[in-house]
């Protein structure tokens, strides 16, 4: 099922801010079904790259193509799902309500969930082992539980590409492994392209197909098993 088809292309892409360029022109691509680790020390531009892909900020130069085309902002919802590191506080949302938010791009004007939507929500609640806390208020969750819920929400959005910004930063070992295995399974079985910003070398070595390294204003593509140390030399 894993076909080598390009889904995202960085074409002469330069990211950063007008007074602080974070990268020289980047030319590389991500394929369907790839699990990719985005690695680099703090401040090297991992989050800025995410922001640029998600159109939160414009590239300084060059462009990002999605399946060969420029992605319009309104098409993001069906193309790229995202999980951020920081926590969102919402009163009165249960775990199920939050996972259901992932289905909003697929619902009608009033956000009404269909049987199919509910089946997809059930599926990801089960896959991430959230069924025991399904009806718990999200404000009462630990950081780790919350992060799992946000991942389930992104998965329920059913986009071909998912970006995760340090998704396991608050998770214990058991929950880290659940997430890693699920991400690998989604990439291989559902042909999803998953770009994960991480500092976790073992995750990169054992689960990812390749790594993108940000260092000295360059992004270098490497085989995942080549990464051996935190400073990526």
């Amino acid at each position, binding site marked *: 099922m894993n076909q080598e088809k390009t889904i995202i292309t960085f074409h002469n892409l330069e990211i950063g801010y007008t007074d602080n360029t974070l990268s020289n022109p980047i030319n590389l691509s991500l394929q369907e079904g790839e699990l990719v680790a985005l690695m680099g020390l703090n401040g090297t531009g991992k989050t800025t790259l995410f922001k640029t892909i998600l159109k939160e900020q414009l590239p300084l130069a060059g462009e990002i193509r999605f399946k060969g085309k420029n992605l319009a902002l309104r098409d993001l919802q069906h193309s790229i799902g995202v999980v951020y590191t920081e926590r*969102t506080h919402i009163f*009165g949302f249960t775990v199920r309500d939050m996972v259901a938010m992932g289905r909003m791009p697929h619902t009608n004007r*009033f*956000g009404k969930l269909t049987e199919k939507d509910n089946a997809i929500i059930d599926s990801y609640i089960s896959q991430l082992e959230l069924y025991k806390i399904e009806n718990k208020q999200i404000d009462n969750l630990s950081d780790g539980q919350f992060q799992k819920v946000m991942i389930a929400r992104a998965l329920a959005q059913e986009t071909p590409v998912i970006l995760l910004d340090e998704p396991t930063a608050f998770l214990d070992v058991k929950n880290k492994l659940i997430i890693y295995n699920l991400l690998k399974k989604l990439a291989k079985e559902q042909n999803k392209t998953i770009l994960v910003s991480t500092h976790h070398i073992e995750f990169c070595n054992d689960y990812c197909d390749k790594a993108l390294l940000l260092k000295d204003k360059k992004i270098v593509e490497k085989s995942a098993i080549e990464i051996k140390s935190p400073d990526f030399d």
Partner: protein
Amino acid sequence: MTISKKIIGLLILLLGLSFLGVALGSVLVSFDADNEIIFKLRIPRTITAIIAGAGISVAGLLMQTLFRNPLAGPSVLGISSGSTLGVALGIFVINTLGISSFNEKFSISLLAILGALAVTFLLLFVSKFLKKSNTLLIVGLMVGYFVSSVVNVFSFYGDKTNLQSFVYWGLGSFNKEIEYSTLWVYYLPILVLMFFIFLIQKPLNLLLMGEKYAVSMGLNYKRIRLIIILIVGLLVGIITALCGPIAFLGIATPHLARNFIKKSDHRLVIPFTLLTGASLGLICDIISRLPGLDGSLPLNAVTSFIGAPIVVWIIFKNKMV
């Protein structure tokens, strides 16, 4: 208690309060078909309390969702002050300069709406430069003070008759001795705006997630922000033009509604906020003209008496101290 039982309970409460609103007053009257006190005073006053209470409350809900801040509301953010400035301009400047207009009341109402919209847009502009939404509340308070100082200058130079009518308007009241045909000019746009709010319940839910997540899930953030600002500005402007500034209902009611149903889903919170706001509007109106009181208490004295403790409770509940 299920959601449907809660909504039925609120409807029964609203019906009972409406009956009390018509029956109670500084004088006890009989329900005769030709009783002018009931048909020309109490029924329009009761309808105004329901519509204005619901409208100002749902405007508060929209502000809290847009700014993702539990303390946002028309009075706290200075939007009501913007309306007050519009009315002050209308009463003092237009009257003093003797500028003729086709209808003085409508000119003043229009200025109230423009004042509310101006402050809301100003807040929107400022919010782009602020990282913490709590800072926006402080800016809103400052806008309120600034506008009040301008209004004070107008009041100082205004003549006594204008000053008296402005002060009376500022106390707030649901009792508008206006013909039904004129009242509908206020009621109808408020009801239309409330209807529009039901059409944006999905974007409002997405906004709860924060701007970044909302945009990634398809929300056109700039458009929905503009729609919300327009709805809030118009609602607050029209209601303030009709009843005067109404303190605290806008900020307190959405919290009562959310805590009652333990949900933030706007498909539920909007109807519950409308019903709770209408009921609170009636309760405040009934208290303000209980039998035995000589005339009516100022509406704002009553809404503040009820609303201020609720706001303090919100601050403690959200550990904002």
